[in-house]
């Protein structure tokens, strides 16, 4: 049948394959994406089947990769660019912020930038420095970019299809510690809009909002809380720019409490913006201030310390307790 159980990484691979098959203008570019199939094998087998002209091993220069992708987009191509790891995106940050994000506006709408930038992100895999970061806010802050992150295989598949079809640049953050998590993927489904949030678990007492790798954690938190008789709702935000505030608002108007969870540092993170907006929108519904759980204002720590840095079951439950105590 149309539905098939597959790992999140495989779902992205299948989605890229479908895009390469259905649109000759789609290109894959990045370091080691060809022969090797990417360091996480997300592009495995694509160069073999679509050739070096469409699945392009690039020189090791991130600014060069994004800069030439912009040029290819100007020529009518739809490049899907891989940045090998989150912490390696910064050489390309200038091209992304000053050129990719602004080209459509600069041209008064005459030029479109259908470029997808894939970034495996987040920690929890015991990696060395620069391999575990969550820089999504640095992109969500930039007008002209759209920023999304799937939390499961089916979303990974469909959100990639939609990102590639978008005429705007999309930064597609891949939760690398969930790459091997399997789920049903229905390749004939009719997906909802790319930038809507989804209630993945209904609850009555408090809303947990998260995206990417933290959605699974929040579901585990909800399970643990249920054992203590507390009913938590979990919202998978899916999109960090734009953020679907309506869905969060509807949930908070019901539960009257909100905890936002992300791996990225709490300070000026997505949670800060969500807290501010939800406070504006739901001031009279809230029983407690919006709380945030996330990374600290410190460099991402060495692997032996990352469990102390990353939000985990207990830290989220602690925030839930604090919220419910108001």
């Amino acid at each position, binding site marked *: 049948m149309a539905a098939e159980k597959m790992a999140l990484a495989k779902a992205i691979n299948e989605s890229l394959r479908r895009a390469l098959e259905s649109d000759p203008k789609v290109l894959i570019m990045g370091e080691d994406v060809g022969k090797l199939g990417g360091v996480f094998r997300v592009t495995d087998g694509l160069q073999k089947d679509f050739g070096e*002209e469409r699945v392009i091993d*690039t*020189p090791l*220069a991130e*600014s*060069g990769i*994004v*800069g*030439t*992708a*912009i*040029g*290819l*987009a*100007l*020529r*009518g*191509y739809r490049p899907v660019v891989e940045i090998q790891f989150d912490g390696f995106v910064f*050489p390309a940050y*200038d*091209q992304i912020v*000053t*050129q990719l994000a*602004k*080209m*459509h*506006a*600069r*041209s*008064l*709408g*005459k*030029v*479109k*930038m259908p470029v997808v930038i894939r970034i495996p992100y987040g920690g929890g895999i015991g990696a060395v420095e620069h391999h575990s970061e969550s820089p999504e806010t640095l992109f969500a802050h930039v*007008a*002209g970019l*759209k920023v999304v992150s799937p939390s499961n295989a089916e979303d990974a598949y469909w959100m990639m299809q939609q990102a590639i079809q*978008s*005429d*705007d640049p999309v930064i597609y953050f891949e939760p690398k510690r969930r790459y091997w998590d399997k789920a049903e993927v229905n390749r004939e489904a009719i997906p909802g809009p790319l*930038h809507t949030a989804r209630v993945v678990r209904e609850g009555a007492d408090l809303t947990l909002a998260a995206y990417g790798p933290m959605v699974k954690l929040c579901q585990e938190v909800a399970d643990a809380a249920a054992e203590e008789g507390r009913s938590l709702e979990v919202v998978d935000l899916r999109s960090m*720019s*734009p*953020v*679907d*505030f309506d869905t969060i608002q509807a949930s908070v108007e019901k539960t009257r409490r909100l905890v936002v969870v992300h791996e990225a540092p709490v300070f000026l993170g997505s949670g800060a913006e969500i807290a501010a907006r939800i406070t504006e929108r739901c001031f009279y519904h809230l029983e407690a201030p919006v709380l945030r759980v996330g990374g600290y204002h410190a460099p991402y720590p060495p692997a032996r310390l990352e469990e102390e840095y990353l939000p985990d079951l207990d830290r989220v439950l602690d925030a839930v307790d604090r919220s419910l105590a108001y």
Partner: protein
Amino acid sequence: MTESTAARKPRRSAGSKAAGTTGTKADTTGAKRTTRTTRTTRTAANKAPETELVQLLTPEGERVGTAKNSPYAEYASFVDGITPDELRGLYRDMVLTRRFDAEATALQRQGELGLWASLLGQEAAQIGSGRATREDDYVFPTYREHGVAWCRGVDPTNLLGMFRGVNNGGWDPNSNNFHLYTIVIGSQALHATGYAMGITKDGADSAVIAYFGDGASSQGDVSEAFNFAAVYNAPVVFFCQNNQWAISESNEKQTRVPLYQRAQGFGFPGVRVDGNDALAVLAVTRWALERARRGEGPALIEAYTYRMGAHTTSDDPSRYRHDDERAAWEAKDPILRLRRFLEAENHADEGFFGELESESEALGKRVREVVRAMPDPDRFAIFENVYADGHALVDEERAQFAAYQASFAEAEGV
């Protein structure tokens, strides 16, 4: 035809071979030099750049480099058949571009423009290279390529919107294959390279030309563009106008080697041309574009020229350079030398020069009138074209902004 044999060989070896044949003496012996002698070479290069230049018209307007055994015969062959009409065309382009540029500077002084980046002195580099492009070629400019824009048929008044502050680029890049001005230094070299990679994928025989300056040569993006272009054998010509000054920083603050020699390390030819000689620039750019079209990959042209004016109208060059330097370059003026040649060859008469004078004044007047009439954009333009497919936050903020604006109307109504 040039290098037709090398063209069939593997890309990288073809590139490096070509670099050897098109370079200069400093090129071919550079590898054997010690650090100390390299330094000597650099000093010598800076003191006597003329010895390295491809030049077809001397500052006195004398046609040179035509002999079959001339080291520049290969390039000269690209303008062998140039007609008096074409020569007059180059002259006309330069004069009108200079007139437009002067008008823009004046409009800035009158408060009509917020800023202007003058091309004064660089007319030959821009017109010579711009006229070498074919209609289907694509141009990636900096923010000073007013002469190239002219060659591509972009209405010069469209260039002024961003300098007046009514937009950030007021023309459709695809209607003239002339990309928007890029202000971040060197970024466009990568866009040009990517575009050229796309041309190859399309199986087309168009070429791309990327403009940048001596300051941009220090940018990582320019080096990355060189490398991507070489690795993918992209049909892109890197056109560096070395106007000697990156705002206040001289060449010596940018490079230890003559810039055209950078190409050799990336595996493609580099050539330094007299950037004030429109004929030589036309020839060398045609050569580079033609070889790109034939699949021979990128080339670097260093047009050796001089920024006669300030970096922009906000700059004060008296703080960092002497007038005598400017005076020395004035003697090599690009327009004057072509005029001398046209006159000596009887290719142009007083009637031609007189008519051009009136045409210049008419252009200046039109530019003045258009700029003065250029309206401020509607305030809601802030929210236009942020995204192609829309964005919920932009919609929300536009609505809030509209409500805020409307509150004034209501207040006035009371």
